[in-house]
């Protein structure tokens, strides 16, 4: 297996097709590995926290390049590996391969796009149909989604989650008791962790997304105090500057998909947490796609983005 994973990593980097059988076996192995992880994984410093990827494989490769690479660095990915971009499968497989190859160096947290329902609308399902002519590979990947962790805790001091807090959750221990191995539900604690957003609100408020909640400084301060942590690191929202700290530094949004959807023009960031919990941000830009020529990583097609014309 060791050799096979290395081979798949190479194929992905060269933009080669990965066979259905290989995806199946990678997904099975990943499930075996992920099933043993806690809902909230413990991670040690130093570690690099990464936000949404959304199928932008070239930018994911840039991310590893700019932040030391998985051979030397520990990573936490906050979810939303798939949808929107044109290389959802390759991005997700690359992360799974790294997870299999370096299990202690990479933690994968589930995002709101790692669900059957959302991937059917936002691109991943269509991408698989386009690349394989059937949806088997999509089904294998969705099985893996159900095993992804819901959060991580760095040195007992920094809580990592994709979306945010939930009115049903006061302590990190309460997250540990969720039965996570299921399609993400439409409401309740597990849904909120994947969907909620911080905002300038006085108390729990309805989210304009129609799932999860909006929470304010009050909820964040309470959570930090109660759980004796100093920071909530989350992703989930596009930030034009790549990252945004809120509530006197008690919460940070990290966004790692530069020029989101090949259209938004934003930069991306990753956050490195040092042993003394110092925060260091690295900003990076999108890879310029070029027809045929490639960009030393893999050849890519020029994306055709929609506008109102």
């Amino acid at each position: 297996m060791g050799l096979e994973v290395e081979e798949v990593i190479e194929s992905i980097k060269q933009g080669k097709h990965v066979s259905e059988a290989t995806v199946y076996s990678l997904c099975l192995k990943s499930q075996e590995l992920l099933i043993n992880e806690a809902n909230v994984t413990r991670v040690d410093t130093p570690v690099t926290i990464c936000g949404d990827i959304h199928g932008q494989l070239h930018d994911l490769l840039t991310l590893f390049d700019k932040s030391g690479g998985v051979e030397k660095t520990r990573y936490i990915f906050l979810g939303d590996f798939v949808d929107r971009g044109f290389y959802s499968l390759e991005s997700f497989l690359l992360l799974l391969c790294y997870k299999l190859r370096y299990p202690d160096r990479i933690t994968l947290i589930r995002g709101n796009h790692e669900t059957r329902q959302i991937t059917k609308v936002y691109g991943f399902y269509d991408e698989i149909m386009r690349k394989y002519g059937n949806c088997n590979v999509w089904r294998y990947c969705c099985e893996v989604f159900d095993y992804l962790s819901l959060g991580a805790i760095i040195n007992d001091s920094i809580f990592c989650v994709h979306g945010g807090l939930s009115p049903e959750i006061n302590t990190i221990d309460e997250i540990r008791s969720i039965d996570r191995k299921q399609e993400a539900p439409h409401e309740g604690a597990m849904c909120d962790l994947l969907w909620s957003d911080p905002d300038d609100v006085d108390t729990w408020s309805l989210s304009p997304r129609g799932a999860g909640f909006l929470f304010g400084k009050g909820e964040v301060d309470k959570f930090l105090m109660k759980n004796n942590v100093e920071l909530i690191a989350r992703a989930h929202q596009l930030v034009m500057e790549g990252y945004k700290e809120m509530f006197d530094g008690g919460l940070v949004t990290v966004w790692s998909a530069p020029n989101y959807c090949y259209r938004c023009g934003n930069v991306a960031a990753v956050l490195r947490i040092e042993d003394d919990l110092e925060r260091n941000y690295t900003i990076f830009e999108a890879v310029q796609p070029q027809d045929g020529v490639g960009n030393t990583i893999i050849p890519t097609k020029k994306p055709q983005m929609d506008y109102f014309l």
Partner: protein
Amino acid sequence: MYYSEYLKTLKQFSRRVFGKINRNITTSFPVMNYGTYLRTISIDYHIEQFLLKCSKLNEKAQIINLGCGSDLRMINLLNYNYKDQIAKFIDVDFDESIKLKDEIISNNESLKISLDASISTNKYHIAPSDLKDAGKTISMLTNVTNAKLPTLIITECVLCYMSQQDSQNLIDSIMNLYESGTWISYDPIGGGDDDMSDQKNKSHGNDRFGIIMQSNLRESRNLEMPTLMTFNSKEKYSQRWNKSVIDNKVDIKINDMWEILNHNVSTAEKKRLRDLQFLDELEELKVMQTHYILLSAEWKHAIK
């Protein structure tokens, strides 16, 4: 309904174009459907406001849809609520676009029936003209319209394809020709103007939407938008109507589509939209919709 009829007949003329449009309709992301919705209802709203005003003043009105493409707005307008208010509805576009539209209408039973009365009474007029040639466009319009009647001009994603000089010529000559009227224009704006934008809105400092849009459109569709970065803010976009040759002040209102969604769409309607199609995030919608605007410019010549 009219659009599905239009598409059905379009298929007989060009399977390639049909396939393209059909694919676009069936695979559009929610963020695109929201934008199309906003664009459609806000233009409709302004047309209705214009007609309502004319009806209160008991004046007949003209509507001129410049660069109409396959827009079928005229059917509802000529058949329902304000049909008696409209003296004339003119669709203007390039020769080949007009020919295709004309052929599709005359080859489709239901489109034909709904427009027959208006065509036979010369109320609906479909006319070829290259808008780059303001002189020819004006002489065509002079022949088929009445310069004294209040006139509504629609340019929906039209001016953005024209050069600065051509679009200014068109605006000046039309506002000069009609004694009174309202101009409704929907277009993208490039953004990225740090000094012009709201200082509190820090996200503008990083705004590269317009530049990326220009390069995406150039590469994938071979499309040019020459003034996207010239008229890159609401303020700069609307300046063109102020320059006009008329003595009287022009009343200009301009909003970006994000403002329209937040201030002009009711809570109930927003809920209806959410129920129709779930939108997973608002940030991308905001980035796109703050770069599209709707302008309404109302003018009246000074009495001589």
